């Protein structure tokens, strides 16, 4: 899931203070905590109050989109509301904000959230934890399913570093587990310390270089084989 945090109400106000009619769009996709119709409505009420304290009126409407990052779903859901609103405030992650700016390109869409990371709820606790950094070079198969990229503050491929004390990380004041100690424990349990001691050379950062493009629908022909046969 994409973990988001709502921006400060003053920051949102500063972005949209010159508009009078706004559409507030929640997203039913993978945003966590939920950023759906209820959250969109609550944000609308808050903004209306904020505008009032500044002596202004705000007309708003809240809706939700099944998935803002899907261009067809986003376009068909948003289209009926475009004529009545000057701008859109999106509660989705950055993908949703970019997509609404694309499919409703005659007006500007603003973000109400900061997209934090790809993660999940932390062991049922009231917190979210980052599990994946979409780095483009998955090494979970070598690390017992614990990610040293998302899980280690220094993104080490050959940890742990000297900043771990009793299995806890120096970053964040020794509250969070050291990913490399977790990896060690996991691999030891499965008698696979050979994977721990293995040296991993420097990473190739090209797959994680922005902007990233991946060509889909590549034809399923084996071009090399065909050329070989033609010879």
């Amino acid at each position: 899931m994409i973990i988001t945090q709502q921006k400060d109400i003053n920051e949102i106000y500063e972005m949209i203070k010159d508009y009078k009619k706004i559409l507030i769009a929640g997203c039913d996709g993978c945003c966590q905590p939920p950023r759906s119709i209820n959250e969109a409505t609550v944000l609308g009420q808050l903004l209306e109050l904020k505008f009032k304290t500044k002596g202004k009126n705000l007309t708003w409407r809240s809706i939700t989109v099944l998935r803002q990052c899907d261009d067809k779903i986003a376009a068909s859901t948003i289209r009926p509301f475009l004529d009545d609103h000057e701008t859109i405030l999106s509660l989705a992650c950055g993908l949703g904000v970019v997509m609404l700016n694309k499919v409703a390109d005659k007006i500007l869409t603003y973000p109400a959230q900061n997209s934090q990371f790809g993660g999940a709820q932390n062991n049922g606790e009231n917190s979210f934890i980052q599990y994946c950094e979409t780095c483009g070079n998955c090494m979970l198969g070598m690390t017992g399913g614990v990610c040293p990229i998302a899980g280690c503050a220094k993104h080490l491929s050959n940890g742990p570093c000297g900043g771990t004390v009793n299995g806890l990380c120096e970053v964040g004041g020794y509250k969070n587990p050291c990913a490399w100690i977790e990896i060690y424990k996991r691999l030891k349990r499965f008698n696979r310390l050979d994977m721990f001691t293995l040296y991993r050379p420097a990473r190739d950062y090209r797959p994680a270089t922005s902007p990233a493009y991946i060509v889909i629908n590549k034809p399923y022909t084996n071009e090399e084989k065909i050329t070989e046969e033609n010879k």
Partner: protein
Amino acid sequence: MAKRPAYSKLCKALEAGHFVFTGELEPKKIMTMSEIIHSAKEMKKTSRIIAANVTDGPQGDAYMSSLIPSYVVQRDAEIEAVWQVAVRDRNRVALFGDVLAGAFMGLKNILVLTGDHTALGDNKKARPAYDIDSTQFCELLSKIIDNGTDYEGHEITGGKVEMNYGCVANPNAVGEYMEPEILKVGRKVEQGIDFIQTQTAFDIEVAKNFIKELSRYKVPILLGVFPMKSYGIAWYFDNYIPGVSVPKELLKALKSAEKENKGDKKAKYAALDKVNVEFFKPFIKEIKENSKASGIHCMAVEYERLFSPLLGEYPDYAKKFY
């Protein structure tokens, strides 16, 4: 891989079987190097300290880069530098560039470090580099020195880089945390390190046990010790350096040495020195006699007056290399 020649005086002394000492210099937010040079000269004078580590933004603080101070120390104090390089602040391109620059200026030792995270430093909002980790930096150094290329294999022309490099290890990783620490050093041994300098240790049994485990790699180990110039430094070290805890009795002794001699600077210094000598002299002796350590890395930054009482009894071997 064939063993790399000892290019540095430090590695030559280790190869000759001497029990070596290294010191530590800390360039901070400075525009003068007079204190560092003074400290380095004092180290040279001892004839026991063969080389001086020059730190690279310890605790993640924004300090003067270690490259130029390392060169200046070698030039002006005529003592070899152990140039500390953290992978926190530079990517592989910058690291390669700095290593060539350092080698060109005559630096002979590199100590490879991951580096304390910027979140611990005095510019907490910074984005750290960590492009390659410390083990991968060891591989890069091996390529530079042994193959004469950068990480991707592009050739260095016009001369050879003649350097030795070492890594750090933390003896305070005890119990179930020792094995991953030892195995991690193993990866760096595989990448060709010439020596190991450890984080500071205060517990003699813990230190000896750690050295025993580490000695399996047959790489010279310099155990870190940290004589403390003041109670304040001891307190800071106890509270802010990852994994290091100063023994309570030592903290107490330093505190009372300062308290009992308030107002009398000379007496206070004498009392503090006495506490340090009483703790570290037998400590170093025990390490030398009853462990496989090849030397001591003495992190007493700007604490020159302790050198003579602490190291005086050891042979002045360093002379032979200068």
